[in-house]
């Protein structure tokens, strides 16, 4: 056997066992569960039962594995980024390249699983919520592939921020419904999707995009995403002969982070670090750092940390990244935080955009702004740990969708033709020259960074 020609993950051993949580009713410690109208319980039970049968069914597992290999392009590679790492205190940095998946992010891992499940339970229609549009595009893609009809709910505000993804979904044959209630962002899209589901549950399956929501979604989405960490753990062991010192990922709802963390949870020596969207800084109140700045409560069907006021009303989140702009977080993250197995740190918009520019200029990789939060956390952690450290980062998505936002942030192109988006004041931000230098972006606010 010529080992160099064989990708390390093609013969990887069976993945480690499922974590001991959640319990049979979907609780991760005190978090999770089901906080939904009774009308949805039957559908959630049906989904749970079908999923539990399917996840140990060899025929399903083979079909799923074939799709991941031939359609998504798995396994995704691990890339070392030495020029970027020069800005990380000399630590070595490895990227898990989920950005190279078909549709451009980790979201496809989950939707292929849930779309197969939809067919298994005999439903012909799927619905989904989307923030940045990546989950919506992935769901529209899987629906096209499997001949399902597809409706995607997206906050009106987000349809403007992510017009490219709206067009992609429509090209793929999905109906995109702009949601005009509440804050007109992801949380309201989820409310609207639940309203659709409770009305059309006999014909429709809800393809949930992250590790939040009522049981079984957090566990099921985790199981579909854990392939990221299962592959990466084997890949790092193969090339380095050891485990990384830390695994880093951005956290909005938290599916890419759970995806890469899960395989490493039993490895006590490996630090798990989730980077939350710190927006303008946690101390400004304009952020989406749910665990850092929130408190336990109930939102969208589960108990978890959330951003809320004294009346228990969900507080609007703020982030330059539409995919992290969510006031809740998956219950397993809340549990990992409370038991001290994972750490959660905020990254401001400015820090994320600095890391975004740096990866573009040093490695020729344009990351999603979501993933740039993980990169910013890596720069900081590398400086803390020094040159001996080996850091594994989930590059959860690519930045094509963010080109307009980034151009606006950095003042690229003809600024008079660029219409600043909501909440974006281009005057605060850097000029083209600063980006070209590859140095830290001036004008940033380092406030709120722990």
């Amino acid at each position, binding site marked *: 056997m010529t080992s160099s020609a064989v990708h390390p993950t093609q013969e990887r051993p069976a993945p480690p066992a499922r974590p001991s949580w959640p319990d049979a*009713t979907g609780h991760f410690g005190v978090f999770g*569960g*089901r*906080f*939904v*109208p*009774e*009308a*949805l*319980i*039957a*559908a959630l039970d049906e989904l749970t039962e079908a999923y539990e049968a399917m996840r140990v069914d060899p025929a399903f597992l083979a079909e799923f594995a074939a799709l991941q290999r031939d359609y998504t392009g798995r396994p995704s590679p691990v890339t070392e980024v030495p020029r970027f790492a020069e800005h990380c205190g000399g630590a070595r940095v490895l990227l898990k390249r989920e950005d190279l998946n078909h549709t451009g992010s980790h979201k496809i891992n989950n939707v292929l699983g849930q779309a197969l499940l939809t067919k298994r339970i005999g439903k012909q229609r799927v619905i989904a919520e989307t923030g940045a549009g990546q989950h919506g595009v992935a769901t529209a893609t899987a629906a096209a592939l499997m001949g399902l009809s597809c409706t995607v709910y997206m906050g009106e505000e987000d349809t403007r921020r992510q017009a490219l993804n709206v067009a992609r979904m429509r090209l793929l044959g999905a109906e995109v419904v702009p949601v005009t*209630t*509440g804050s007109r962002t992801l*949380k*309201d899209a989820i*409310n609207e999707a*639940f*309203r659709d589901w*409770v*009305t059309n*549950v*006999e014909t429709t399956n809800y393809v949930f995009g992250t590790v939040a929501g009522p049981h079984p979604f957090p566990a099921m989405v985790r199981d579909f995403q854990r392939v990221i960490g299962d592959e990466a753990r084997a890949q790092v062991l193969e090339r380095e002969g050891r485990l990384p010192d830390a695994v880093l990922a951005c956290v909005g709802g938290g599916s890419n982070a759970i995806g890469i963390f899960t395989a490493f949870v039993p490895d006590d020596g490996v630090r798990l670090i989730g980077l939350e969207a710190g927006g303008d800084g946690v101390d400004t109140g304009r952020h989406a750092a749910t665990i850092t700045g929130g408190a336990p*409560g*109930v*939102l*969208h*069907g589960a108990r978890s940390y959330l951003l*809320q*006021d*004294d*009346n*228990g*009303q*969900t507080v609007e989140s703020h982030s330059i990244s539409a995919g992290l702009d969510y006031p809740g977080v998956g219950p397993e993250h809340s549990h990992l935080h409370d038991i001290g197995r994972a750490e959660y740190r905020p990254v401001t918009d400015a820090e994320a955009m600095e890391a975004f520019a740096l990866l573009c200029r040093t490695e020729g990789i344009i990351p999603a702004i979501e993933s740039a939060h993980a990169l910013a956390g890596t720069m900081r952690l590398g400086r803390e740990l020094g040159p001996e450290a080996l850091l594994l980062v989930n590059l959860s998505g690519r930045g094509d969708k963010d080109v307009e936002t980034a151009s606006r942030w950095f003042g690229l192109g003809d600024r008079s033709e660029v219409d600043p988006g909501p909440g974006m004041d281009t005057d605060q931000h850097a000029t083209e020259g600063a980006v070209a230098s590859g140095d830290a972006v001036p004008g940033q606010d380092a406030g709120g960074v722990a």
Partner: protein
Amino acid sequence: MSRLEERIRAARAEGRAALVAYLPVGYPDVEASIAGMVAAVEGGADVVEIGVPYSDPGMDGPVIQQAVEPAVRAGVGIRDVLRAVEAVDAAGAVPVVMSYWNPIERYGVERFAADLAAAGGAGAITPDLIPDEAGAWLAASEERGLDRVFLVAPSSTDARLRSTTAACRGFVYAASTMGVTGTRATVGDAAETLVTRTRAVTDVPVCVGLGVSNGDQAAEVAGFADGVIVGSAYVREMLEGRGPDGVRRLSQELAEGVRRQAVRP
């Protein structure tokens, strides 16, 4: 005995169904919403469901969302709700709070139960709390002698009808159709089927909600249920500016409706 059950049984003794009116606190403002509730009682409501405004009302349709959003923005909270409870109690109807779970959890479950009982509230309806997750609320409501109303739906299995109704006190809220709140042209057969299935497993009264908006529909539902719950139609009176007068007139029409047809034995 449960205050809600007592009132519903009193209605049954008159050969009619009970009328349950819903209005949220805080639209167009707290005082005006309380005036609306009092008008609903004056028009003939037996029970008032006092809605706690919530930022993410996943079970509500556009009418109720529209009224609740400004109340949320204005910072209306449990303290205002307790004032409404006192006003409805004083007006002679049975006040029951209708709240998504997070506002109650944030206020503190035991504190909520204590303050609700002190204000004269009969209990609470919790549309996104199923008995399986309700340990703290079951304990607190038990301690304070409060009613707790959980929902059943056409999709509920018989086993769930049994376990959910076993946890209910006051009445069982039968969500008549699969969907969100809002007025509908017809009530549909699903409601009667659900009531029949629910009655087969419990002696707790069964009230029907979702979709009833006028006297004829109220009469139809009164033909098979112990109580008729009306929400969006009341809220629309407030949204369209007819205020307490509109609410009172609607209550009168609905109260006539629930008396039109005798409750089946």
